[in-house]
């Protein structure tokens, strides 16, 4: 069996988990194996949707001990399920929870682990992964020597493809309490927007923005085209009051949106490393020699303070918006 750990939010499977499930289905077909989907929480309402993404069996573990995320509780559940069902591959989406729990479960299983992978295949009966290293400056093909193989899939890379699976259900017992660490409280950002790592459209600003307050024009453009705002390290470190959670680059977030609009970003190696996985790149910069143009599908040499508001205006006029 190929087992995919899935996350629910507001009774729906999170998009990165549907992507991991779809890739799991493809691998299960290639290997002639069953696909299992594993859910955990106070309630697993919504888990049945996994059948739409190819799950043959849907495992649910419900209970008060699983109401808050705990790395040891979730790792125990994952590892025990892998062992009980004889799964050879364990996948999760490379989300905050997935990246926290999957390596712990892998160590419990004595399994090799590949994080944030962008391609998977089954070679000689074992998982093989391709993953970006040096923040995308290179790609490493990873092979496993362990009997069980664990990987997390990078959000926004694997297409979520609907393919009906049998969707049989099996209820698993929730692990008993007394965990080593537990999440006590979630402090949400006011915006409620998706995270940069999962965003489909990113409008990013660099040193050319001149001041943190000027990021307002990027917010307006992002709102008009359904995107979120990021920043280069130069902008975050400039003392403009931008949080580091906005930073895109090797020492910030590594992103893979469909569209990345770089405004006033010259394109330092460490920034390019973080966004070169974008499908389409637009660069807006005064300096025609800026390295970012080498990467851009579309380049605009001009003053971003004129171009960005024009883009917002035109996008609103055309009624453009992306999912």
């Amino acid at each position, binding site marked *: 069996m190929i087992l995919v750990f899935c996350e629910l939010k507001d009774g729906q499977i999170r998009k990165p988990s549907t992507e991991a499930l779809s890739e799991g289905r493809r691998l299960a077909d290639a290997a002639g194996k069953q696909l299992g989907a594993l859910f955990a929480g106070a309630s697993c309402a919504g888990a049945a949707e996994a059948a739409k993404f190819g799950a043959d069996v849907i495992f649910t573990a419900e209970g008060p001990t699983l109401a808050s995320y705990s790395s040891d509780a979730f790792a125990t559940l994952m590892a025990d399920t892998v062992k009980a069902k004889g799964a050879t591959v364990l996948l999760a989406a490379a989300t905050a929870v997935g990246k926290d729990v999957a390596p712990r479960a892998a160590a419990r299983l004595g399994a090799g682990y590949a994080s944030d992978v962008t391609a998977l295949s089954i070679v000689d009966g074992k998982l093989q992964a391709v*993953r970006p290293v040096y923040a995308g400056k290179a790609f490493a093909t990873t*092979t*496993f020597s362990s009997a069980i193989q664990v990987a997390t899939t990078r959000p926004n890379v694997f297409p979520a493809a609907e393919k009906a699976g049998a969707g049989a259900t099996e209820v698993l017992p929730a692990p008993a309490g007394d965990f080593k660490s537990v999440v006590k409280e979630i402090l949400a950002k006011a915006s409620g927007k998706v995270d940069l790592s999962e965003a489909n459209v990113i409008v990013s600003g660099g040193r050319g923005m001149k001041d943190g307050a000027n990021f307002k024009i990027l917010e307006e453009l992002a709102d008009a085209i359904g995107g979120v705002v990021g920043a280069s390290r130069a902008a975050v470190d400039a003392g403009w009051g931008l949080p580091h959670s906005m930073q895109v680059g090797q020492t910030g977030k590594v992103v893979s949106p469909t569209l990345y609009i770089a405004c006033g970003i010259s394109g330092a190696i460490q920034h390019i490393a973080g966004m070169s996985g974008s499908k389409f790149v637009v660069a807006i910069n005064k300096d025609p020699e800026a390295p970012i143009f080498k*990467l851009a599908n579309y380049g605009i040499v001009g003053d971003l303070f004129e171009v960005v508001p*024009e883009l917002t205006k035109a996008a609103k006029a055309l009624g453009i918006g992306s999912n």
Partner: protein
Amino acid sequence: MKILVALKQVPDTETKIKVAADGRSLDPADVKWITSPYDEYALEEAIRIKEAKGAEVVALSVGGDSTKEVLKNALALGADSAVLLKGDGQGDAYQVAQMIAAYVKDKGFDLILCGNKGLGGDNAAMGPMLAELLNVAQANVIVKLELGEGTFKAEREIEGGSEIVEGALPAVITAQKGLNEPRYASLKGIMAAKKKTIEELDATPATSGAQVSALALPPERPAGRKLEGDAAAQAQALLQALKDEAKVF
């Protein structure tokens, strides 16, 4: 309180990546090696705990002779002692976690700090694997840490915000940018570090779980095009191109 800080030596962020002749590793020529920036936040946090409430801080790295630079720097910044586990520190996270776990066991560390990922390898796996092998609590990607009596409270970065993780010590805590602002080594610290020796031990042999079989550069991006005209015309042309050619909208 006894704190271990695990540090990794990594290529500098400005490194232009070249693939070595073996086709699966980084060509080390012209690479400048640094301490992984996330590990610097971990070390700074350990030194701040030591300054605030008293602690013994041990710096540890896995690698060869050149890795001693990382440990010398840690001593100059305020670590009390340093340990080099001689072995492949650039290899598989599971292997490195086993080596460190074998050293840590029974040494009475209350807290183990390291970066949330090693820059370059980008696995973000060693910390949680070490926590599992030691059967202790973990909290990853931490931007704030408070210690109580045998407990910790940490703020960890998640999508769209953060969450508070509470747990029992001993624990493995992995640092994220924002946890603190690392200091520079003082001349006094550098001089004092010269008098300290780095303990060298052979790493306990460990099996790896995953191996890099090939390393490749990303495909070249196709040449783009520049959009002409005034700002309004450029904006129109861009949106049309994104709609019709790229089909983004």
